[in-house]
């Protein structure tokens, strides 16, 4: 099956920086792809590039974003407008500010249906109530006339999801959908997204920095650092056997999800330094913070190698506990 979305060598350039470089990934129908990385690693810009909503100063000098038959980087504004909201939809990080404060939620949901599906006002309102029911808002017939400020953060994010899935998009981009929510609501919202993904056969690009979210909800994980993909794996493999030193650091820096874990059982390790050190680095962008860095790391950017089936890693010195012979991996 051809991939639903295929990103090849995507580079995003600003006048004075290139926050995303040569990023490639693909996502199949009905799949959840998680993009993980710390702040500043280019996750959100990638999401905006997929929607072609980058800031004015940004350019895409090379790369291809193939969505079905179309290359989104070459599509004109009008064609892109027709795709947005109908075939590709996006959920934003901040549910508190992502809804128009002076329009009822029912009208905001109905609006997208009127634009893309040309529904009448009455039909759109009925669909809006159905959608509110779908995202499990209680008493949707009453809530449909509420303004956003009358809803809690979790409910607003549900409304955002309802708007995003209103036209049954093929691809849903969720940019840190739960970061602004309470922990108790996070799981509910992610469960809802996962249920909808299955019911509507959507592909989901889940952008997050929460490894717990990745472990539970992703089918495939891309780890980004300083605008580059440093590792790609299935979640099982990633958590069992992280290969890139950055991934290892990220996992060691996450609180364990064991029920009896206590901070006295062992301090969380940190990755020394900050992502700023990648600026101007000629070789591996992670070299200044890497505990396994060698002199040769500074010469050139490491290529992605294939250490095992369904895996990619951008570190030549990585050793896997289940390493396959190098030559065999490369012939993959």
């Amino acid at each position: 099956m051809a991939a639903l979305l295929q990103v090849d060598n995507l580079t995003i350039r600003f006048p004075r920086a290139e926050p995303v470089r040569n990023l490639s990934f693909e996502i199949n129908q009905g799949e959840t792809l998680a993009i993980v990385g710390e702040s500043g690693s280019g996750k959100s810009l990638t999401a905006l590039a997929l929607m072609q909503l980058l800031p004015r100063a940004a350019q895409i000098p090379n790369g291809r974003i193939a969505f079905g038959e179309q290359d989104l980087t070459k599509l004109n504004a009008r064609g892109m407008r027709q795709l947005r909201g109908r075939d590709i939809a996006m959920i934003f990080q901040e549910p508190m500010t992502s809804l128009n404060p002076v329009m009822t939620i029912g009208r905001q949901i109905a609006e997208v249906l009127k634009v893309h599906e040309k529904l009448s006002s009455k039909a759109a309102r009925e669909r809006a109530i159905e959608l509110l029911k779908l995202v499990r808002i209680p008493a949707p017939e009453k809530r449909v006339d509420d303004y956003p400020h009358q809803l809690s953060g979790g409910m607003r994010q549900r409304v955002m999801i309802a708007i995003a899935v209103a036209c049954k998009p093929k691809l849903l981009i969720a940019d840190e959908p739960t970061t602004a929510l309470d922990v108790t609501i996070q799981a509910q919202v992610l469960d809802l997204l996962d249920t909808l993904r299955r019911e509507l056969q959507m592909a989901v690009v889940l952008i997050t920095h929460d490894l717990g979210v990745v472990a539970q909800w992703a089918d495939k994980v891309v780890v980004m650092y300083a605008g580059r993909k440093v590792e790609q794996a299935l979640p099982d493999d990633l958590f069992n056997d992280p290969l890139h030193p950055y991934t290892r650091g990220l996992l060691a820096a996450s609180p364990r999800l064991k029920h009896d874990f206590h901070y006295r059982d062992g301090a969380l390790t940190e990755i020394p330094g900050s992502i700023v050190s990648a600026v101007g680095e000629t070789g591996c962008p992670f070299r200044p913070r890497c505990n396994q860095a060698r002199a040769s790391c500074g010469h050139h950017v490491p290529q992605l190698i294939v250490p095992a089936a369904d895996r990619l890693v951008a570190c030549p010195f990585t050793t896997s506990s289940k390493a396959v012979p190098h030559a065999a991996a490369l012939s993959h």
Partner: protein
Amino acid sequence: MSTTDIGNFNSLAAGRQAAAEHEVPAPSAATDGPAWSNMKAPDARSQQSAAVVITNGRRALKVFLSNPNALFGTAFLCFVIIVALIAPILYPDDPLSMVGRPFLWPGQNSAFPLGTDSLGRDVLAGILHGSRISLFVGLMATALGLTFGVLVGSTAGYFGGWIDDVLVRLIEIFQTLPSFVLLVVLVAIAQPSATTVTLAIAIISWPTVARLTRAEFRAIREKDYVVAARSLGYGHARIIFREILPNALPPIIVTSSVMVATAILMESALSFMGLGDPNVVSWGSMIGTGRELVRTAWYLTALPGLAIVFTVLALNLIGDGLNDALNPRFSQDR
């Protein structure tokens, strides 16, 4: 670091796969309602919104009507409008015609309750007929200035770039000229009549609206919900008029009520200087003719002055009330 620490992540990942295989029936069991019991619990918000089942348009009206200042303003403005409408019935004759003895003080003669001026014209008839011209000029000039100002300001603020540059230069041309001098020049060039005065006031008042609208649009177009609207594939017009403009309205509404008041004042000022339409009576022209007699017959300036003061005050009170009522973020707190 060891990989055993992350075994729990791994178990989560494995658990997800297991869950996907036999689709835990727990959430789907509760098909009759939301899957989470806590979502059913009534909270303060849902009870409040259950109690207030009136539509939001009516709620705004309710907030507006519960504001005594706004009520007073509306009542007074309605009174002025009614007066303007029935003035030709009450005083069918030309208010500029001489009907009695000059310098009758208010109350001196029951035929002229507010007295007569230096030429023996009825002051009450003048004030009643004057409300027609004041309201016409105030409302029409504001409507014109508002329409043009909002169009220019929203275009400049929303699109930015060279469109913004060109439109801002245009606004600045008008801003560098002293507005009242420009108004006087415009009226002096054209024949003074109600229409030309209205147009001239609209021409000098639109830049204020345009600047305000542009500033609001520049702030709001960066908001998350506008980016969200773009991510839904909405066109420019829809984003401008449905997403941004309603959010930019409160300051524009307040400004527009003040603009009506300012337009009335400007018309009065023009008439006071003798640049108004000479064939109709207006509050400003009445003050203008009474000006020389202010020490002996002060009521000739005070009475039309009071009419201006109360009308302008009523418009300002309405503006404040509207601002509170139309903005759901404010009305919620009341």
